[in-house]
């Protein structure tokens, strides 16, 4: 089941998702959302391990994917009402549309690259007028002030910034999920039942919410909680079913999303 991912540099979350889905294209019926989601999460972790710039957008798409996958885990799928079903398809179609748009421009970029390579083989004449016409060529310093010379100098000596998204606040998902699981194992047996919204009430960072969500999914997988959602995008109801005995965090195997 493990996906061995080669190490191209992905330009963005759509780029990565496209790659993961399309390399399976050889056998279309082997492609499954579960495999894609797992591979995507694994890839995000790998990106962080080798310290590439990981934009939060990667995690937002991860959240969408996990949500799509979670829908399939939730009980009561047989009696989903039609509106919910449609909304779900809408959400998926939106992601699909963005992937198709991304793929379109990736292909255009390939054509641009070839056009530029061809054009680069010809060099334009830029010699300008020779000395015979020196008197006719306008003075290039006309309208240029000493202040502009100063500005040009400052521009020339200023190191050109290369932007990197600072990741110091983005903890690796693996550690955070384990921590979040431990927190939930402490909290849920005491409260018994709580909405996901309340569980994440104090969290400011979207990433923390995502990590909480992943932790909830882990506990669901382990069968110590039940999840319920009355309507799409409605409150997710989290219910502790693990009994009254305290559960040690270490006793829950944490899926580290390596496929």
């Amino acid at each position: 089941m493990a996906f061995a991912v080669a190490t191209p540099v992905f330009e963005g979350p759509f780029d990565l998702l496209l790659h993961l889905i399309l390399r399976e294209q050889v056998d279309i019926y082997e492609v499954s959302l579960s495999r894609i989601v797992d591979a995507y999460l694994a890839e995000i972790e790998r990106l962080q391990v080798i310290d590439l710039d990981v934009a939060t957008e990667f995690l937002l798409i991860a959240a969408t994917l996990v949500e799509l996958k979670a829908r399939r885990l939730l009980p009561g799928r047989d009696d989903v009402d039609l509106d919910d079903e449609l909304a779900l398809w809408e959400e998926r179609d939106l992601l699909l549309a963005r992937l198709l748009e991304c793929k379109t421009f990736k292909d255009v970029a390939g054509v641009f690259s070839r056009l530029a390579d061809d054009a680069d083989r010809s060099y334009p004449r830029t010699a300008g007028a020779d000395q015979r016409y020196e008197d006719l060529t306008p003075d290039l310093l006309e309208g240029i002030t000493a202040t502009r010379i100063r500005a040009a100098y400052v521009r020339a000596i200023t190191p050109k910034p290369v932007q990197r998204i600072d990741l110091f606040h983005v903890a690796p998902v693996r550690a955070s999920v384990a921590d979040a699981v431990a927190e939930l194992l402490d909290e849920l047996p005491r409260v018994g039942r709580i909405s996901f919204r309340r569980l994440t009430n104090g969290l400011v960072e979207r990433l923390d919410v995502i990590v909480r969500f992943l932790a909830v999914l882990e506990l669901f997988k382990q069968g110590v909680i039940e999840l319920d959602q009355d309507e799409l995008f409605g409150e997710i109801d989290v219910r502790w079913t693990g009994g009254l005995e305290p559960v040690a965090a270490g006793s829950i195997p944490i899926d580290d999303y390596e496929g």
Partner: protein
Amino acid sequence: MSNMQFDAETVRAIEAILMVAVEPVAPDLLAQLLEQPTAVIDRLCIELAAAYDEAGHGFQLVKVAGGYRNQSHADLAPYVERFLLDGQRARMSAAALETLAIVAYKQPLSRAQIASIRGVDPDGVLRTLQARGYITEVARDPGPGQAILYGTTGSFLEKLGLNSLADLPPIAEFVPGADVVEALEHGLRIDAPAPDAPA
């Protein structure tokens, strides 16, 4: 070249002007300077370009970015690059090319619109493309915030060797085929999980 007697002087003048020009010269400007209809200028330039090709010269007359210019012939690039020590041009990164593709076909558009298509913050790439002169601020969004709207430049057309944006291949040619759509749909399908699918 036809009408040699009448056109010879105009053709020679075009050749002389292109020799001192530092960027593509618009046919309208040539028409005005040489007191000829633009259509005549265009016809003469096309004939001149063909004559250069036929004579097998090491240079070409081409129309790029809306104007005529002289350039070295593509097949002599190895010699020219040896001569111009810094002749090897820097290739654009995949990110730069993709962003340029989006701007080219969707202009004018804002940074946020580019970000939503690429899924990543295009700030650094936009700055690079702007510094290289391939894109520029062409307008402001009339809505709140007055976002800067970007468009491509003449240098972009020159970089790709195109005369105008109309020469870009139609975007419809790049819409992914049925196989890709099908693969993506399968990758994102949300019907019931297979019995052995991991939770």
